[in-house]
């Protein structure tokens, strides 16, 4: 693959995905919407795990917080405007990430993993035990947000293809934004911190501030995904904040291949489809009830035998193909 093709490939994929509603409807479009939302969520985590070297096991906190923010801001039987509710939800996530970031970034390694998990659980219990968010039942979002310019409706999110295009556009925007950020001096410095924190500090980089900026951006982007997920499902409950959500997104990042961004998108495809296949009762009958057993074994195998993820496999086969062509 030469450089030109690599530059255009993301646009090609996005373009093809944008055409999808023309050929398919309802079920597969909803599934694909879910994949794209998880891709945004996974990319936000890849910024932390793959580029900044911080393994967060509590990323569902920001995802769920944005969902709750939307549910609490939206009036019960009226539509809320996307133009202010999305930025507000993302802003809340950024703020929460900034505050928790100051605390969790005092720790490293195993501590960091446990502390991020603990803070996510704290949020889980706040929404689970108190009446703020309807307790364990959660809150319904009866009317989806509107996108209007003046009196003109730009998109009707009740229509699944409009919602799909919105999610796709935001996924593309997240991808391009992160690519820009990671290509900048700031992004290069993050990778430097991942590789050798002490050296970067000795070079005069404000390591803590860089990490905090990365943590905050990551939380904000996870908020976009959480907001969209809440819109798609039409309700939020504490499950959206649960540590299984954090585990799933970490799994997606590793499965796809961390530190590659596009790996997160591949991982989201693979993971959501795998979940869908394993829990398919038509194919596996009664065994489908215990699909998490197969998922658990799959996760363990990936951890043991596929540390570079699917993107790693692609690169390997790409290198092999390149080596063969030069041989000839």
């Amino acid at each position, binding site marked *: 693959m030469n450089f030109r093709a690599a530059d255009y490939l993301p646009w090609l994929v996005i373009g093809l995905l944008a055409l999808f509603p023309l050929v398919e409807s309802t079920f597969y479009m909803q599934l694909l919407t879910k994949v794209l939302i998880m891709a945004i969520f996974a990319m936000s985590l890849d910024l932390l*795990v793959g580029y900044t070297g911080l393994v967060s096991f509590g990323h569902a906190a920001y995802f769920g917080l944005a969902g709750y923010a939307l549910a609490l801001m939206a009036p019960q039987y009226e539509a809320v405007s996307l133009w202010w509710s999305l930025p507000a939800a993302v802003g809340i996530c950024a703020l929460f990430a900034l505050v928790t970031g100051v605390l969790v970034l005092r720790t490293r390694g195993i*501590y960091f993993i446990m*502390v991020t998990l603990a803070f996510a659980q*704290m949020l889980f219990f706040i929404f689970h*035990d108190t009446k703020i968010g309807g307790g364990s039942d959660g809150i319904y979002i009866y009317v989806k947000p509107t996108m209007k310019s003046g009196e003109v409706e730009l998109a009707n999110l009740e229509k699944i293809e409009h919602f799909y295009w919105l999610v796709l556009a935001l996924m593309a925007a997240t991808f391009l934004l992160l690519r820009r950020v990671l290509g900048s001096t700031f992004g290069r410095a993050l990778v430097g911190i991942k590789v050798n924190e002490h050296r970067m500090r000795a070079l005069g980089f404000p390591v803590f501030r860089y990490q905090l900026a990365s943590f905050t951006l990551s939380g904000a982007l996870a908020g976009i995904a959480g907001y969209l997920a809440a819109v798609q499902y039409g309700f939020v409950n504490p499950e959206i904040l649960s540590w299984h959500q954090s585990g799933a997104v970490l799994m997606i990042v590793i499965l796809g291949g961390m530190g590659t961004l596009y790996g997160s998108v591949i991982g989201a495809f693979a993971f959501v489809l795998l979940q869908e296949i394993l829990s398919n009762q038509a194919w596996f009958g009664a065994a489908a009830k215990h699909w998490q057993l197969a*998922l*658990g074994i799959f*996760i*363990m195998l990936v951890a*043991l035998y596929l540390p570079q993820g699917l993107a790693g496999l692609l690169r390997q086969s790409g290198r092999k193909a390149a080596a063969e062509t030069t041989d000839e």
Partner: protein
Amino acid sequence: MDFAFFLIQLLNGLQYGLLLFLVASGLTLIFGIMGIINLAHGSFYMVGAYLAWSLSAMTGSLTAAILLAIPLTVILGMGLERLLFRHLYQRDHLYQVLLTYGLILVFEELRSMIWGDDVHGVAVPELLNASIPLTDNLSYPVYRLAISGVCLLLAAALYFLIQKTRLGMMIRAGASNRDMVQSLGIDIKLIYTLVFALGIALAAFAGMINSPLSSVFPNMGSQVLIICFVVVVIGGIGSVKGAMAASLMIGLAETFGQVLVPEVAGTIVYVLMAIVLVWRPEGLFGKG
């Protein structure tokens, strides 16, 4: 709050804290010595509780069930260490998180397939099924006191094992320099297997003795696991002493929280953790 009521809550808090210590001490030992983050630690607590329930239904006695279940969990721990965890010692924490997370899903589904998804109660042993009257209408169950007593005994035994015996010396040496210990002719692999099995057995034992109080139910492990993470963070990784101090702190904070401010009780422990992080990021007894 009158004195008898206060005393009951105090005893409950201590009992809960001591129970947390059994789970957290294994967790912190495995962290400290092998450098492994074990998310599946809570699953062993659950396995212990379910074994206690099903074996006591078979034998008719919780004591017999516990005596049967302990060797089973030790074998389980040794087997898993040989098969899985051994491959993770040199790997990044990220993969340890993933593998042990996968293990949780496997354990939960196996539990669902073998024992079903219902909640079950476990009977308190006949001999301990009594309570001590405190006032006219308040009394304290003997079984809870017995749990606290057993936990204290185990804590003392653990301290003795690690600080005073030859094996404990090897364990501590293995924690600081694995290669050096090995070249001195000590079988470090065997020591790792033993420590891992000990940690697993402690967690499972906690599940067993607490099963009459908590009953057994799906996902019971994850609740305990996350609280134990908080304990380990507050106490300092690898410090058994820290685990004891933090367990008691959390046990008391959560018990009194439930009584005094039930709405925010679930968050108190995390606020405690945040305070400790600001003040001493390496934990109360951690080495900086």
